[in-house]
């Protein structure tokens, strides 16, 4: 069983806003087949475990109910690896800029 997350912890919750089949009529098929989901963060109002329904207070002070997903939710986005497709652009452009210009150091 998942560990207890203490009251007051900063957590992420999950809700289904519109189940599949009750979505807006204009959505394409692939979107209509899946629910509209919401994730948001806040402070846990009572102790709870991931997967349980809990209540949070959001940063603006609203109370929202949802399934406890992640305690201390991580910001996953990053820069990632350097890419060879970008690495040479600066050198190539410098070479074009200095084409035909005397090398003053030489």
């Amino acid at each position: 069983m998942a560990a207890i997350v203490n009251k007051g912890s900063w957590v992420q919750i999950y809700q289904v806003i519109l189940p599949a089949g009750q979505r807006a009529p204009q959505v394409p098929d692939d979107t209509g087949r899946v629910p509209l989901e919401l994730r948001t963060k806040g402070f846990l109002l009572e102790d709870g475990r991931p997967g349980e329904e809990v209540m949070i207070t959001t940063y603006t002070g609203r109370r929202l109910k949802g399934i406890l997903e992640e305690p201390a939710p991580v910001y996953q986005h990053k820069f990632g690896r350097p890419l060879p497709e970008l690495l040479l652009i600066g050198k190539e452009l410098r070479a074009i800029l200095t084409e035909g210009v005397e090398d003053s150091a030489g």
Partner: protein
Amino acid sequence: MPADDYQAVMARKNQIMKKAVGLDYSRFSRSEIAFDYGRMMAEVGYSLAEIIKIQQATGVGNTPLLELKNLTALVRKIAPRGKGARIFLKDEAANPSGSFKARRAAVSVYHAEKNGYDGVVAATSGNYGAAVASQAAMRNLKCIIVQEVFDRQGQGQPEILEKGRKCEAYGAEVLQLSVGPELFYTFLRVLEETGYFNASLYTPFGIAGVETLGAEIATQLRARGEREADAVVITHAGGGNLTGTARGLIKANSGKTKIIGASVDLSGLHMASDRDFNRKSFTTGHTGFGVPFASWPDRADVPRNAARALRYIDRYVTVKQGEVFYLTEALAQLEGLERGPAGNTSLAAAFALAQTMEQGQIIVVQETEYTGAGKHPLAQLNFARENGIRVERGNPDLEKAGESVIIPERPEQIKARELDLDRIKLSYLKNILKNTGVKKIEGEDLVFLAEEIKKSIAEVRAMLNRLP
């Protein structure tokens, strides 16, 4: 308690909006089709002088106008003899929240505070969220941002994840949704529940906020003894950036400047598709917003969109994703300015357009945006690759959105591809007929439509006759 299923909430849209914007749009209505745009902007918005004061109070605007000398030199290396306009860049990343959107937010949040709202809500996956959150923090209002972030697998678009983080950094509550246009439904429910102000991107306040950007371009050039800008290139999505900038230029007596819209070409990707969502490397400034908003502005979250691009646009060009990444790299490497990729859409277009202009002419790129984890070429290209997109160097003409991102091999390959504005204007007219159900257009409706698409009445008549 009123019902909260999709249809029931959407049916209450107008009454929710009236309360949340504090504005009765019906008083500008003239007919099923026509409304008094000029009067709406004049009466509801603020004057340029007032906006300057409002923005100064929170440190917004008056951003540097930088001449990109190395990029101009590069343009002249590859352009025909005598060609190669000077490229200037308005460094909007210098605004408090890191983008020009601070200008829009400044006026909306000021207006909300003045009218006694406790908080502001905005439906946006873009830089506007951070802008509203930052302004709300300064004015002691609460702030809720509703974003479209995840696909069904819970995989977030890196750029939007970063924008969400930034909103949270300013103390906003961020509601992060999976893909779908029902973001608007969620937004309406939040407005109804909280009674907060709808800091829509598309109110007269928001659009008037951008006018200072256009005006600054004119006055900053003038103050340096430069000629009037020959062209201003504007990244185009919802139309507010273009509309506000063009109006500001006109107000600052730079009405001869050509207004060129630029969008990233994402043709072939469906904007409401869960599958396509994470197959794009740009989440704004693209044709998926630019074309539909130009041809039907009133699809926005207010009854009458104050952003009406076809009233002002002279040319509309597209660039490829790979070209924008290339120019983003060039801006960092040659000009020492590391900025976010989406804001460099207009830069990529200007780089191509400058090659067709005389050396004495001036082309202005009117924005940059901040960069950071997620909002960066590396982040986007690594993410694209993880999602099965081919990333390679080659001929950007062969790039196909959703399948490949092709980084040019040489600067000469970068193009500004002309979109047929007349086709978009025609589709605007089609949408008017379809959405209002009006069969015969005459009198003041004709005058209105001529203003809407910047054509003569005779031309509008001829275009209407060509419709089935």
